[in-house]
């Protein structure tokens, strides 16, 4: 599958970004922001969104200089073969580890709320196997699947979210503007990692047929993600208040549990929401998994990515079972997003762009 064959539109890549990013992070996001900035947490989200837009535009500019190459190829051009190989390997590791974490967290939450006695291995394996089916259908198949699934994901999610807003106490969002800017600045960095996943564009922009729409699409799409995060966080904070949120591991789920659907035929909304949430994780993981297989095909210059898909499965599976308990998961995830995340998402693209500009490589863009 080379970039001349498969063409998708910018709109479709936009959808891919949305579903890839919104995944595991959204469950703990309200707690994360409140832990850092209390009731000013929403500022963090807005700022992180803005920064993400910035970085994505950096990547977009970089990609536009090399219209038909993914980052694997043009990094060879920019920094030489061995470093490019290193970048490739870092990226693969990044995606694989991220995928393993996501699978594990998914399993834990599923166990907690839906299937308490089922062993986590079973949950992980069945999930990964279904994922392989997705991977094997190739890039086009994945994108089409996402186009459909995005509606199925978000419409019930928002309906559920808004059903509970009747009894919210918005004053829980006060006091506002109490935190010092310094705390906010440091905090922003941590929250940017809830947006991880968008960097997949440096692999997929070559497949976009109408690249000129890419910039606009990126801005719109990341704003949408920011909005989704913002609304969810505000609603959850409003319903619990800053004290309570800090002690809930997954505040979003607690919120869902407290919703009473009026007159309803659904008693415990979380059963339904959990099933919707499977879709969220599925899309995020699908992108991660596919990206790693894809990078491998590019590095080894092979044609088919399917074999790599299957090869990576045991690795991801084993990795996902490494952390011993819930606390460890989040500890390691925190460290991982800090270091690996910064490296991949921020440092590498910016460095590459700078180098490209200095060495005047690549196609001159029109603006």
């Amino acid at each position: 599958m080379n970039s001349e064959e498969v063409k998708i539109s910018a709109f479709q890549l936009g959808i891919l970004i949305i579903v890839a990013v919104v995944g595991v992070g959204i469950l703990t996001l309200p707690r994360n922001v409140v832990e850092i900035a209390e009731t000013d947490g929403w500022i963090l989200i807005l700022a992180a969104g803005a920064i993400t837009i910035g970085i994505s535009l950096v990547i977009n500019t970089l990609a536009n200089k090399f219209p038909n190459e993914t980052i694997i190829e043009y990094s060879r051009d920019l920094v030489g073969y061995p470093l490019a190989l290193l970048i490739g390997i870092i990226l693969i590791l990044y995606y694989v580890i991220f995928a393993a974490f996501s699978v594990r967290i998914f399993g834990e939450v599923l166990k907690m709320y839906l299937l308490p006695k089922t062993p986590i291995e079973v949950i992980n394996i069945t999930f990964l196997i279904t994922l392989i089916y997705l991977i094997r259908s190739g890039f086009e198949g994945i994108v089409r699947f996402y186009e459909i699934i995005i509606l199925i994901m978000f419409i019930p999610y928002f309906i559920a979210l808004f059903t509970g807003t009747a009894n919210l106490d918005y004053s829980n969002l006060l006091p506002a503007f109490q935190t010092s800017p310094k705390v906010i600045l440091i905090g922003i960095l941590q929250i940017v990692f809830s947006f991880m996943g968008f960097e997949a564009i440096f692999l997929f922009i070559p497949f976009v047929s109408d690249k000129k729409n890419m910039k606009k699409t990126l801005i719109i799409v990341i704003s949408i993600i920011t909005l989704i995060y913002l609304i969810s966080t505000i609603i959850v904070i409003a319903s619990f208040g800053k004290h309570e949120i800090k002690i809930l591991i997954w505040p979003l789920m607690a919120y869902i549990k407290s919703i009473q659907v009026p007159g309803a035929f659904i008693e415990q909304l979380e059963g339904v929401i959990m099933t919707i949430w499977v879709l969220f994780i599925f899309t995020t993981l699908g992108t991660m998994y596919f990206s790693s297989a894809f990078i491998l095909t590019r590095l080894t210059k092979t044609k088919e990515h399917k074999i790599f898909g299957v090869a990576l499965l045991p690795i991801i599976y084993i990795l996902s079972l490494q952390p011993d308990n819930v606390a460890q998961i989040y500890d390691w995830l925190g460290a991982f997003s800090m270091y690996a995340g910064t490296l991949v998402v921020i440092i590498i693209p910016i460095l590459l762009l700078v180098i490209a500009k200095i060495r005047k490589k690549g196609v001159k863009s029109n603006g």
Partner: protein
Amino acid sequence: MDKKKIFIILMFVLIFTTGCWDMKDIEERLYIIGITFDKPDEEEIERQRENLEEPDKFTPRYLITYLSPIPSAQTEGGGEEETYSTRSITTVTPDEGSRQMATRIDKDLFFGHAKLVLFGEEILKDKKVVMEMLDYLHRNQKYNWNVLVGVVQGNAKDAFSINPKGIAELVPYITGIMQNRPETSKVADVTLSQLAADMGDDGTMALPKVIVAPDEIKVEGAAVIKDYTLLDYLSGVEGRATMFLKGTLEGGSVIVEYKNELIPYVIVNAGVKNELKTTEEGLQLSYAIETEGQLDEGIYGGDFVTDENIKDIEEQVEREIVEDCMRVIEKLQKELRVDVIYADSYIMKYHPKIWEQIEDDYSEYFQEMDIRVTADVKIRGAGVVK
């Protein structure tokens, strides 16, 4: 290609045949819809201790009663048979309760449909125990967070042993009363999530008070919890005043005396606005209550519905409300020394700088605070008779 497919199919088959871990058919579960927590009486404790190996460490501290409906009785239309059953056990920790029940009944306890949690008086007097119960109710995901909570004056388990006439199901009866808030101002419904939010803060909360009579239940007033222990009760009127101050009143009435008649002012809606001023003596907090309502009862015969009368009645009601509130505030400040009227959260939200200063010694400040109450009553209608 084929080998891979076989492999995948094999995996699937393996997984699926090794068992359905969570499968528990619907009729094999026992649906708990109500729970009460009590302190077991001394004899019971002693008796249990005799059977224990390490009596000092593992003293039973809870008497938990589970109420569950009997499905087959329900579907066959009730009748004289009991439609629900209650079981009690004594246990060391709340969660152990469900496991101990497993030694006595064949079904799996399922809490997802629980609707009501009642605490007995006695058990709320021990802070550690209270915190343990809170933890139990929150930590696991078995409970739905819109479970209603209440405190029973006396032994909570009595609430489940009554047999009210003509009422088929006990728990909906109680929760229904609790949810009557729009009707009467003397009731409040507190859900588990509210419990978490409020208690989680500083251990202060007002919970609805439940009184058990031989064949019925009354929910009126509030139980004041401070620092995770039960302090005292507020009567119905006091409870109402608290709700006025909190701004959570949705209905109910205030009875005033007018021209030697007792006239109820029916509340349609009520809200409150707070304001904080700092003076030399300290903090001055004012609650400005605003309410709209109507008169469903008046003085028959003659001209009752005149502007003058209505304005007079309004003033009466205002006075009545303010008096009630001041009384309750006095009680809260001086006697109980607990803030259940959300003064602290107001200050925290709207005057954070001041809050930072008084946060640590808040209870002192609360006692000293000059709290003023004003009421503005608007009567909109008075029925169809002049």
